């Protein structure tokens, strides 16, 4: 497959040119990747578990089964020049998980892609996913990056999402790798006219994680929900860089990223919104809330609005700080212990993102995971 070799070569050339980013570069100012840059990695093996729950009429497969779809889309959205890690991942591009839903096909049950990095010693993996929905297709995709055990590793993941006109995708990505793992991810979506993408990215694991989410609203009337949740502690570092590109008029984007940082954990959020000339009637809202549960936890939040159209509605807001003392007192005044009040408020902060996940079984699974993390008992609906 010449196109594939050519794609890898472009990735390799780009990476050779720029190398690993340093904190002197604006986009990497708060995230020091030296531990990754200075390590030497062996080639890891990506273990994928794919579960489509017996759904019919879709194509899930690797390059041998889905070569045509891959050739048409792979590498066309995730920009090699935007991020050195995308170039590196492309240079080592190996297996690809392709989910292709034909036009006007509705897949009711969630499609689950679960990745675990295997191999001997310190390894790097480049898990690659391509999701393509034809016009008016509907699907739910859950992409999970599992704990690969207690060892140093690098997952350098790239996911490209392409939505045809009128297509609807619920996409949830969960990263819960081991604490010694580094996780670098790029998710790039491209939406056609009147399409709907509801994306939630959840970061629980990895000592160092960086996720660049890019979304292009390329068709009139497209709608994007770009949500995220980090729940981290210890010395974990999690960095979310999002770029929403309003390229066409009458599109809307709703962005909510909440981060819970305990102990010495560190969070970075950079939310860039571009409204192109002519993208009139854009409706965009960005919110980033950071909960600092200890005096040593730290978070940095940067909105970045670039608006080149004049008839638009763009709002953004960020919060940063400990749990609200008045809210804690309110719960205590109803008989809850200070510890329960604290867990409940923290859970509520996380649940604010979780409850927006439209797919109930997925939402409930994550709810259990988050509750376990925060020590909150069953939240069965009373």
């Amino acid at each position, binding site marked *: 497959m010449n196109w594939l070799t050519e794609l890898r070569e472009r990735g390799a050339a780009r990476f050779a040119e720029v190398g690993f980013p340093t904190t002197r570069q604006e986009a990497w100012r708060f995230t020091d990747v030296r531990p990754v840059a200075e390590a030497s990695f062996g080639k890891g093996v990506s273990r994928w578990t794919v579960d489509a729950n017996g759904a019919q009429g879709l194509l899930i497969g690797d390059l041998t089964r889905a070569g045509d779809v891959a050739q048409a889309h792979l590498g066309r959205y995730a920009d090699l020049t935007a991020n050195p890690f995308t170039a590196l991942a492309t240079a080592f591009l190996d297996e690809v998980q392709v989910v292709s839903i034909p036009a006007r096909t509705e897949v009711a049950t969630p499609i689950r892609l679960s990745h675990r990095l295997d191999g001997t010693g310190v390894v790097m993996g480049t898990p690659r996913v391509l999701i393509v929905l034809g016009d008016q297709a509907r699907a739910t995709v859950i992409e999970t990056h599992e704990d690969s055990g207690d060892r140093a590793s690098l997952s350098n993941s790239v996911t490209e999402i392409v939505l045809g006109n009128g297509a609807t995708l619920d996409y949830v990505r969960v990263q819960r790798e081991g604490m010694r793992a580094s996780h670098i991810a790029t998710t790039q979506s491209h939406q056609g006219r009147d399409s709907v993408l509801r994306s939630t990215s959840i970061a629980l694991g990895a000592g160092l994680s960086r996720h660049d989410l890019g979304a292009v609203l390329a068709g009139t009337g497209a709608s994007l929900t770009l949500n995220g949740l980090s729940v981290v502690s210890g010395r974990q570092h999690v960095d979310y860089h999002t770029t929403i590109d309003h390229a066409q008029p009458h599109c809307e984007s709703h962005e909510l990223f909440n981060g819970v940082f305990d102990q010495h954990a560190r969070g970075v959020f950079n939310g860039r919104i571009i409204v192109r000339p002519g993208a009139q009637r854009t409706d965009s809202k960005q919110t980033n809330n950071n909960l600092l549960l200890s005096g040593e936890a730290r978070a940095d939040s940067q909105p970045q609005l670039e608006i080149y159209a004049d008839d638009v509605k763009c709002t953004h807001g960020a919060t940063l700080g400990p749990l*609200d*003392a*008045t*809210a804690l*007192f*309110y*719960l*205590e*005044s*109803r*008989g*809850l*212990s*200070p510890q*329960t*009040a604290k867990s*409940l*408020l923290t*859970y*509520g*902060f*996380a*649940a*604010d993102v*979780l*409850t927006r996940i439209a797919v109930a079984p997925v939402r409930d699974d994550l709810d259990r995971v988050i509750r376990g993390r925060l020590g909150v008992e069953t*939240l*069965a*609906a*009373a």
Partner: protein
Amino acid sequence: MNPGSVLLEIKGLRATVATDAKKEILKGLDLSVRAGEVHAIMGPNGSGKSTLAAVLAGHPAYTVTAGTVTYHGKDLLEMAPEERAREGVFLAFQYPVAIRGITNSYFLRSALNAIRKHRGQEELDPLDFLSVLETKLKQIGWDDSFLNRAVNDGFSGGEKKRNEILQMAVLEPTLAVLDETDSGLDIDALKTVAEAVNALRRPDTATVVVTHYQRLLNYIVPDRVHVLAGGQIVKSGGKELALELEEKGYVGV
């Protein structure tokens, strides 16, 4: 608690703002409330009404510097806020707090179970809780429309106040302190809230209504009315005192 016996006894209570020890708000306040009674605390803005309510609930924003508060024969000031709640003290907040991501019903069940556990009663599972809730809703004549919404999140002013009363109904306090529950309510909402409070009255419990206006007291009729000014109770009387205040203003009495 027997009807008619003293439930709450406040003597010489002094309190300052926690962050500013020089800012004294309560300056030697005395108050005695018996089981079965409704007391109204009235007074101009800044007189210390809300501070009194907050101090009774144990709000950390205030420091008690002198005086005693005896509740059920126990030293209330020794208790942490959650202990007070478990012992039956309830404060309906003037500004109820929104808790995102937690449904009202879950919050209510957690609170009720904390209190039941303290009383040595069995904790309720979601199904049992639901039937308790239905009974309570029926008692105060309300529907269940805001049970599955996040606590006070996006609630209107009136809904928040109603939600406080719903919590009161479920938690069955022995001493309920309503801090300006009437503020911001239109007349219909006011009546609804007052009817609920009246429906919850029992001979072994007491209610302290803190209000700026006499209006609420047309619907929740007090046994005693106290005027709070400058951090002290300056005048006490029967329900007619409220009418007198309405007529003459605080300066006139």
